[in-house]
């Protein structure tokens, strides 16, 4: 069975070009870049240095050495938060300003730091998930050691005003970290232009391999490592370098930069076809997240009166993710949808469409047919739908029938 993969926020397939670039490091060029007494080591070091330059270029880092390789963005996020907090542990009171809709890697790292008496402050967000810049500025004080705000959200796709946040951070002299995992290759970002001090990268979200990521760290910023042992990566991250992974990340970064414009335009068209189709063909739906400031490949839709997992089952053959509790082992619906005040019963009926390179118009049209039929069928058995038709209010929620405000 050939599935249509529409879960590119969870992970992406490895680009064939990237795999080809990795093959030498997976076969004959197997040296350890730390081995400086022989050619195998030198060749590995050379490959790593080239990849470092490719990654630096993707984010506009002035020097390749500003890139610290990690095992992924979860580690990069942890290194950014804990690295700063531990480097400043002489401060009697420390606080970090972030958002309630950050990825778990940021939130759970922050939660860990709370146990070490670091205060975590959440800047207010609007119902689309966009940070309130005034509230952000108000939350910063002389004990603020870090601002950590994602570039774009992995569930609802909302893009933050990164440059404005960077300006505020700079004005207050506070380092600014952004988790750019979902944005890279889909939305242009530049650490110099946007005043970003740290930026998290994950290869497998941009057609690179799993198990490799990076943290851009502005020159001069000192982080205490979370992984010690030998002093690799400018003393910020020890461990034998994952050469094939790094080469893959480098190549993925090069392609992401090269294809950014064409691919994001193509994705936007596809996404709009999907969005318009849903709004035209299905009643009582609501778009979660920002109507326009969102990733071009993201669409998050609440289908009122139906539950997400049952709708995913109806879309047999399509790989999708949902905000439904019934698709997570924790039996909790999405904390992101909660944080932007999507009523629970709508969160349970929300699907996330993550478009990517493999998707075509044909895929979108197949999915639209499946959704229309599935929603109709499931609403026919939904007691909530009957209630709604009888005018009983389930929760005070607004359902849009009109096209999105563009």
């Amino acid at each position, binding site marked *: *069975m050939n599935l249509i993969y529409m879960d590119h926020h969870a992970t992406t397939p490895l680009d064939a070009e990237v795999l080809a670039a990795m093959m030498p490091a997976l076969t004959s060029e197997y040296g350890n870049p730390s081995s400086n007494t022989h050619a195998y080591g030198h060749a590995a070091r050379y490959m790593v240095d080239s990849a470092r330059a490719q990654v630096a270029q993707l984010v506009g880092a002035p020097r390749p050495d500003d890139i610290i390789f990690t095992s992924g963005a979860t580690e990069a996020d942890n290194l950014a938060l804990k690295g700063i907090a531990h480097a400043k542990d002489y401060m009697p009171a420390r606080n970090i300003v972030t958002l309630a809709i950050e990825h778990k890697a940021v939130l759970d790292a922050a939660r860990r730091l709370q146990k070490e008496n670091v205060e975590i402050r959440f800047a207010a967000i609007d119902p689309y998930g966009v940070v309130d810049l005034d509230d952000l500025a108000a939350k910063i004080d002389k004990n603020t050691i870090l601002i950590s705000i994602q570039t774009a959200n992995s569930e609802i796709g909302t893009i933050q005003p990164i440059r404005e946040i960077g300006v505020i951070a700079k004005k207050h002299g506070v380092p600014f970290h952004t988790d750019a995992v979902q944005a890279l290759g889909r939305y242009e970002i530049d650490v110099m232009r946007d005043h970003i001090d740290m930026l998290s990268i994950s290869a497998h979200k941009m057609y690179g391999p799993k198990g490799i990521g990076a943290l851009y760290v502005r020159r001069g910023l000192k982080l205490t490592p979370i992984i010690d042992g030998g002093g690799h990566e400018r003393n910020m991250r020890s461990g034998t370098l994952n050469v094939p992974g790094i080469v893959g990340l480098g190549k993925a970064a090069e392609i992401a930069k090269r294809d950014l414009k064409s691919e994001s335009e193509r994705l936007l068209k596809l996404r709009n076809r999907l969005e318009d189709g849903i709004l035209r063909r299905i009643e009582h739906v609501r778009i979660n997240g920002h109507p326009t400031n969102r990733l071009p490949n993201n669409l998050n839709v609440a289908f009122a009166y139906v539950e997400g997992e049952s709708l995913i089952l109806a879309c047999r053959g399509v790989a999708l993710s949902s905000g439904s509790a019934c698709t997570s082992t924790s039996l909790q619906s999405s904390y992101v949808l909660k944080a932007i005040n999507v009523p629970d019963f709508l969160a349970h009926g929300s699907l996330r469409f993550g478009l990517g390179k493999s998707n075509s118009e044909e895929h979108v049209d197949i999915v639209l047919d499946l959704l229309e039929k599935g929603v109709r069928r499931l609403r026919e058995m939904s007691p*909530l739908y009957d209630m709604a038709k009888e005018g009983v209010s389930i929760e005070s929620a607004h359902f849009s029938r009109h096209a999105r405000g563009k």
Partner: protein
Amino acid sequence: MMDAWDDYSEKVMDHYENPRNVGIVEKANGTGVVGNPACGDVMKLTIRVENDIIVDAKFKTFGCGAAIATSSMVTEMVKGKSLADALEISNRGVMEALGGLPKVKRHCSVLAEEALKAAIADYEKNRRDISPAA
């Protein structure tokens, strides 16, 4: 490659795809509504009881695949049963009839049992309200 449905038994998927007894029983004399939209599942079970026998049962369910399948299965199981026998149906029995459920979905079968009990309790209450006390 495996399929997204592989968490579920064939029977579950059959009941999800071809649910039995969807709807509201005409002239129902017992209705059970359990669950909570905020929690992601609501089951409404309507039954018609004649001479202590459940002669008809239908459901409407908002919930995941397992919730729909257990609802469908429970309507099948109760039809033609005496109230006493129907009350013997447990969530475990529904699960077994479906060829098992994934661990995280067991609560759905509990909900189905509860919906049935609620419908029968409603029938009993209606009867007490209408007919003079025995």
